[in-house]
């Protein structure tokens, strides 16, 4: 389960699923990338993987839903859809058609912190893809007869992802409650009334401000080296004019002083659940020193069927069918440390919440078991080796890290930083973060029966 990631695959569900998968399994890793920067400021990263004669080509823009102007929620994602329309040299839809004709696949996605466009294709067609991607970085033409049907598509996407699902609606409400002043308050896909009100002028302004080579990162993974890529990158992207430097100005989250509860009751909920999220730091926001200890804590306390929470709530006390914890410190802005559990039939949600609270209290009181910390760190090291396996995995991890504002070292040194985490650091991080005044508790309940 993953409640805190709000990626939106712009064009298909599958993309979103793959993205989550890639991120979960490939968080760790030493990908040994090579990097250089073009004269116009565009950063280039190459991750060689010679498994098959194919490449994954990605262009990441350092802009996401959290960079949108107030009242224009959904513009980053809506704009991402429009990037597949008309340009000065292409008709609407032609971009994807040319790639398909060359045996390639393409898609895009938007998160709070970045927007990414990607293609997979035989390595001998890479130039075609680069030419097309460079073309739409500056050559897009927006027209009403493309904007309006696409607006309807985005509204259908919102219905499909969020409005048709009680669980997704609760997640949206919880984030809105969690982030009082930080832009993660708004959903990536946007609020319906604001999606409806976005104008062509809004969209063009957004494009001109953010879609520039000096605000973009090129990541190519697969059957290629940096020496082979450099001339292509210079040829296709090097001639794009550098734009004005943009600063990502984001509001700051004030201290939280009161625990918040959010309850969603719906007749369609047949299996209730509880989620609890605590405001937490990330690599770029708040107390950075807590980030790696919190990652290990999530693994020991709530990662999988051998974790403390699962053992206690699911196996020993038999109160829940599932229980766990999650944390991701890769945001640009504040993160959250979260818990989830779903009750066994006949167990009231209040009872389950009390048991969860007791486990958290026990953790804060007695600290984490040092032996389990060593075990978890060992397991997490191995994940870094698996992460190298797939061609797209490294591109995804490095691209998202750089686009959010992290460094290649943050990715490459992850195994060492994780292995340096101590029990004392975890206990200190838990004490600092898991305070009820920093929390939002969400309950997903059936409309008829109270509390079960």
């Amino acid at each position: 389960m993953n409640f805190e990631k709000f990626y939106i695959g712009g064009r298909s569900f599958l993309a979103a699923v793959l993205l989550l998968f890639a991120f979960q399994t490939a968080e760790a890793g030493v990908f040994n990338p090579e990097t250089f920067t073009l004269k116009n400021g565009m950063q280039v990263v190459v991750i060689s993987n010679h498994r098959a004669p194919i490449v994954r080509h990605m262009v990441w823009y350092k802009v996401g839903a959290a960079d949108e102007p107030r009242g224009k929620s959904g513009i980053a994602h809506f704009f991402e859809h429009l990037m597949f329309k008309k340009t000065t040299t292409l008709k609407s839809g032609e971009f994807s058609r040319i790639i398909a004709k060359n045996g390639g696949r393409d898609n895009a996605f938007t998160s709070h912190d970045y927007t990414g466009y990607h293609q997979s294709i035989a390595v001998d067609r890479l130039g075609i893809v680069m030419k097309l991607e460079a073309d739409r970085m500056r050559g897009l033409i927006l027209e009403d007869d493309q904007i309006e049907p696409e607006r309807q598509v985005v509204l259908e996407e919102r219905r499909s992802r969020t409005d048709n699902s009680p669980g997704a609606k609760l997640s949206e409400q919880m984030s809105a409650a969690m982030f009082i002043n930080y832009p993660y308050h708004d959903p990536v896909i946007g609020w319906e009334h604001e999606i409806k009100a976005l104008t062509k002028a809004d969209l063009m302004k957004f494009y001109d401000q953010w879609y520039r080579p000096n605000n973009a990162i090129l990541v190519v993974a697969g059957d290629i080296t940096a020496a082979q890529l450099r001339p292509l990158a210079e040829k296709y992207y090097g001639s794009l004019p550098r734009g004005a430097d943009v600063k990502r100005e984001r509001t700051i989250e004030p201290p939280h002083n009161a625990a918040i509860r959010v309850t969603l009751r719906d007749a369609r909920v047949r299996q209730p659940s509880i989620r609890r999220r605590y405001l937490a730091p990330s690599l770029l926001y708040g107390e950075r020193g807590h980030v790696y200890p919190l990652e290990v804590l999530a693994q020991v306390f709530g990662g999988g069927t051998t974790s403390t929470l699962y053992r206690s709530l699911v196996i020993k006390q038999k109160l829940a069918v599932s229980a766990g914890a999650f944390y991701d410190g890769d945001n640009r802005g504040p993160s959250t440390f979260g818990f989830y559990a779903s009750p066994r039939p006949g167990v009231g949600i209040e009872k389950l919440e009390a048991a969860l609270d007791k486990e958290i209290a026990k953790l804060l009181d007695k600290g984490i078991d040092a032996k389990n910390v060593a075990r978890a760190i060992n397991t997490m090291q191995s994940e870094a080796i698996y992460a190298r396996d797939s061609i797209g995995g490294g591109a995804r991890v490095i691209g998202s890290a750089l686009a959010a504002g992290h460094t290649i070292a943050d990715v490459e040194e992850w195994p060492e930083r994780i292995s340096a985490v101590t029990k004392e650091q975890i206990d200190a991080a838990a004490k600092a973060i898991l305070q009820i005044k920093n929390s939002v508790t969400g309950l997903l309940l059936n409309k008829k029966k109270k509390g079960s």
Partner: protein
Amino acid sequence: MNKLLQSLTLAISLFVIAGPSSAIEIKQVTSAKGIKAWLVEDHTNPIITVDIAFRGGSALDPAGKEGLANLVSATLDEGAGAIKSQAFQQKLEDLAISLSFSSRLDSFSGSLRTLKKNQTIAFNLLRLALTEPRFDAEPIARIRGQIIANIRRQSENPRRIARRTLFKKLFQDHPYGRPSNGTEDSVNVIKIADLKIFVEQRLARNNLVVSVIGDITEADLKAQLDKTFGALPAKAMPWELAEITPDATKKTIVVDKAIPQSIITFAQPGIKRDHPDFFPAYVMNYVLGGGGFESRLYEEVREKRGLAYSAYSYLAPLDHAGIIIGGAGTANARTGETVTVLRDEWAKMHKKGLNSRELKDAKTYLTGSYPLRFSSSGRIAGMMTAIQMEKLGLGYIKKRNSLIEAVTLKDVNRVAAEMLDPEKLTMVVVGKPKGVTSTP
């Protein structure tokens, strides 16, 4: 035509499609005890990925015990041999070995991923899970509870409701028409003895297929094959599953749900994987609704009219039936219009088929994109298993693109005319659709 496009079109015609097989060398390995596996040796990373499948899946679950194969798949790794549930899970966790099982209508699968240094333990855990699962009372009760919770959760998922209703209508009393993960009632009556019988009767050497990729030599694999699968019974209990032609009689079923977006799904008889017309049908479907952002359904429903986020079709070839399925999701108020567009496209393809440009573009995409499937160990292993399950032969990967190239316009259009019958479309709509009603 503009300049960029011209140069790109030129580029297209200059390229010769690179074969996917250049980096993938598959060997068939046979162990001393006669157990066969397909192997791709790849020593780049110290990782081994194993994918196995047994023929026969959830469609063989006894009547009234639907969900048996699924319950077995979720409990094989909950303790085996002398190792109890939590200890088993802890071992997997500590060694970063991932072991999981799953069931489909016609198969029961397993996958194992391990670091090379832990391969002996990993293969041994796989052996134990397949041959000596404990099925202790505590984990069975726990997993049963999780499955039932999931059934409840899914029972209000509009997509699941649509699919369930469609399959029930298409296959009626045939096992394909039953819920493969079971119902609350059926999962509750499955006994531990049933799980044990499943393992004894269904997991054998004669219905097993094995695929391995990674940092392992042929000699090492041979030894592991005998140790891991040698103790399985030689033969699975024989089974019979009737062939069935899906019931499709132009019927529309509306399932009333208070949701803002109606989920539309529809189907009619298609063809099986071993049918000589499979590739013509595959190419036809790509153009109709299979091809991502290029298909006709995508173009007409999404691009032109903005009616849906996704509009698609796909072939679902089962061992004993073939179907072609389509679908879309649209605001309740626009459901009537969307259904009309979908039906029109179906009829158009039925009557006129493809034009030669569409056929050419489809072939270029389908052949050119084949190498993209070889992007990770898991995908390569899965593909080797699928090829073995369909008995397509070791040379299939090299041959496959030429089979696509060989498809003629005449074949495709004959298949479109025969297979797509707008009069026999069975449709399910979940939501509060305007302009669509159930057939009386």
